[in-house]
């Protein structure tokens, strides 16, 4: 039978008759923790005071990338420590940091094509399509697909496919072609946001309106008005209906 560790890890420990505790192996060392905890809380229960590997505690900052193996399986599993519930006999380690290549660039000077990407990240061309990155993404993103999209020159698709990336870096730690996928992806998203998606014209119009000071007087009036009038203006303001069409217009247009 294949075991994860060669060390003998079944040394008995006197613990009270607590059936809610399960053994897990943090960096190869056994701890008993309540079975309902996330890996992150299990670290704390075990006695660690987390400094590295703990950020938002809500599955979005990417600080607590974790890899683990279960006995009797060669598979490497991944998860965010703050989101993954412990399993009995899991062998785990956090990877709170993994060095990744990151290009320095001036966004304003870039051109929105794959040449830009290949120039800043020449290693992109080394992708061998092994799909290990996709298999190792705790957010279940199609990492290899967005890398392929970039190689095809489809920056926008890469941006959209990579959008929920939390930049935890597990893909990078596993990549045999030594890509820093998440840094390449944010460049694709910034190029998309800046150059590929059309700019919002209504936004430019509003900024121009504000610069003409047309709201100065109405706002100053609101600022100096008495509480009673203010409350009335607030209560009487017209609500845009939930189901209203995008181009809905209010009846009172004096303060637009």
């Amino acid at each position: 039978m294949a075991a994860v560790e060669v060390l003998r890890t079944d040394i008995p420990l006197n613990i009270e008759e607590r059936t809610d505790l399960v053994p897990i192996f943090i960096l190869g060392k056994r701890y008993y923790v309540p079975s309902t905890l996330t890996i992150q809380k299990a670290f704390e229960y075990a006695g660690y005071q987390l400094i590295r590997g703990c950020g938002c505690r809500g599955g979005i900052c990417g600080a607590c990338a974790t890899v683990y193996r279960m006995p009797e399986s060669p598979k490497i599993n991944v998860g965010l420590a703050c989101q993954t519930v412990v399993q009995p006999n899991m062998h785990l380690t956090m990877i709170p940091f993994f060095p990744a290549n990151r290009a320095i660039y001036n966004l304003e000077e870039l051109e929105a094509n794959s040449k830009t990407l290949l120039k800043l990240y020449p290693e992109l061309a080394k992708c061998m399509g092994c799909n290990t990155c996709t298999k190792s993404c705790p957010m279940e993103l199609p990492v290899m697909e967005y890398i392929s999209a970039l190689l095809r020159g489809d920056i926008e698709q890469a941006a959209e496919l990579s959008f929920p990336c939390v930049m935890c870096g597990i893909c990078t730690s596993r990549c045999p072609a030594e890509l820093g996928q998440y840094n390449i992806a944010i460049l694709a998203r910034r190029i998309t946001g800046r150059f590929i998606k059309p700019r919002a014209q209504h936004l430019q119009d509003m900024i121009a309106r504000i610069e003409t000071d047309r709201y100065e007087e109405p706002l100053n009036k609101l600022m100096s008005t008495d509480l009673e009038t203010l409350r009335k203006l607030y209560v009487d303001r017209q609500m845009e209906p939930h189901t209203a069409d995008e181009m809905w217009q209010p009846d009172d247009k004096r303060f637009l």
Partner: protein
Amino acid sequence: MGYTPELMDLIKRVEKTRPERVARKKAGQEFPALTLDERKERLEKYHPDYRAGALRELRVGPSKGYDVAQEFADQFEARSRVDPDKIDLTEIHYETDVLVIGGGGAGTAAALLAQEQGCRVIIATKLRHGDANTMMAEGGIQAATKGWKDSPYYHYLDVLGGGHFENDPNLVKTMVTEAPKVIGWLERLGCMFNKWPDGKMFTLHGAGTCRKRMHYAGDMTGAEIMRTLRDECRNRIKDIGVLEFSPAVELLVDEKGVCSGAVLYNLETEEYFLVKAKAVVMATGGSGRLHMQGFMTTNHYGATGDGVIIGYRMGVGVRFLHATQYHPTGAVFPEQAEGLLITEKVRGAGANLVNSDGNQFVFEREPRDIESSSIIRECTKIGKGVPVPGQAGKFGVWLDSPMIDLLEGPGTVEREFPAKFILYKRYGIDIGKLPMLIYPTLHYQNGGLAYESDGSTTVAGFFVAGEVGGGVHGANRLMGNSLLDITVFGRLAGRTAGKFAKERTEVGKIGVEHVRRYHRELEEAGIETDRVSPMVLPDYGNPEVKKRQWTTTYVGTVR
């Protein structure tokens, strides 16, 4: 995993009333909103801030006599980690033009703008650059950008109404008029806002808004803004340095009383470092990890209110700090997701809140404090809360997300809320088909250090931006105004600090006399304590383990 059989039974009641609730929504019939007087009554009776014993009067410092949460008062009435008699002020470890304390959205925006004034900048941050509440903000960012139906005038009214008309009018005016410019700035930096094919931005309602003006990027708006700003900072590495795992634990002041740097504590090597700077921007964010009244929190690990504490010790007063925001919809089931924020956008998209009978009991777009008070009322006085499995005495109510798919078409929940969809899927719950069990959770520090529109404070050389400051939101912030607050005031404070640093010719002898004064004041007030502040990290240690740590010393909560 997934819901327990008991919960699945209760969900049947929600499903039974759902078609009718969806039909009403489609017909434009909303649950009646509370009047201003009813709002007031609901707050006073059910909001946690109003509970007897929730607040305590401060006995020291510039806002002496003002009531704040007990947990905050404990932090104010505590000694510095720095001993004024022992500190060696002769060796300065870092020198810079502008020191930004805090690596979230406000701090990063400030760093970028200070750099644009020609300054060298250091960002000192407790965790990694970007591990901040900004990263966790989901719903969106408010700005009146659609001139055919909206303007800063209406945005102003909404902000005032949400804050119960107590907000600082100057700050509000600045925020609402700067708002569209900030969206333009973010768009230029490459933030991927959700847009129509012609470039028009998607906007939604938030609670307490009269126009749909919440711009968003999926359900990760804060993450998108944070990672973009951070990325831009990294491109300016020549001028902007970042010190991670290095929280500021005290400020430095020169002999003229001008703020001139800070003491940083390297959490990994346990060394203290002195940074001398010509200007300091305080942007440490909020304090959910103080767990007021034991509430769970949506905040990130480092949100312990450090900046408020050390800014106050230096002499800057606080306002609206008595008001803590409880987000109406924090997950209470499954246990692993407890405290997790469910964005208000779910309600903005039309999902009702319903009780254990499956009945709607409140309009889903009341301002947050009203919504939270109504949920607490439903679970206590009315007694129609849903019992949380495995947690005796705990209740929640349903957030009926499947309504969104019925209103907007199948797959909308998965498409519009990808992060939450994946998360619940991990726990075996499809939120496109099943409602979420929620309860109010500690979310936001409405108040903080007092500051002006340009970020300046009563102490020269010291600037404030974001959640650490107080005034713009009054006693209750509206959704989508925190991402706006941090970007607007982050930029303004960074610009002002940069200009100040450029004009400041010399920094005098630096010291911590203010700490000595504060300690003396504590003694004079008869406060004898071994508490130290700022807290730096919350204490989630296992008491059983602590019993066995025979030789370990803790300073405050930090080992």
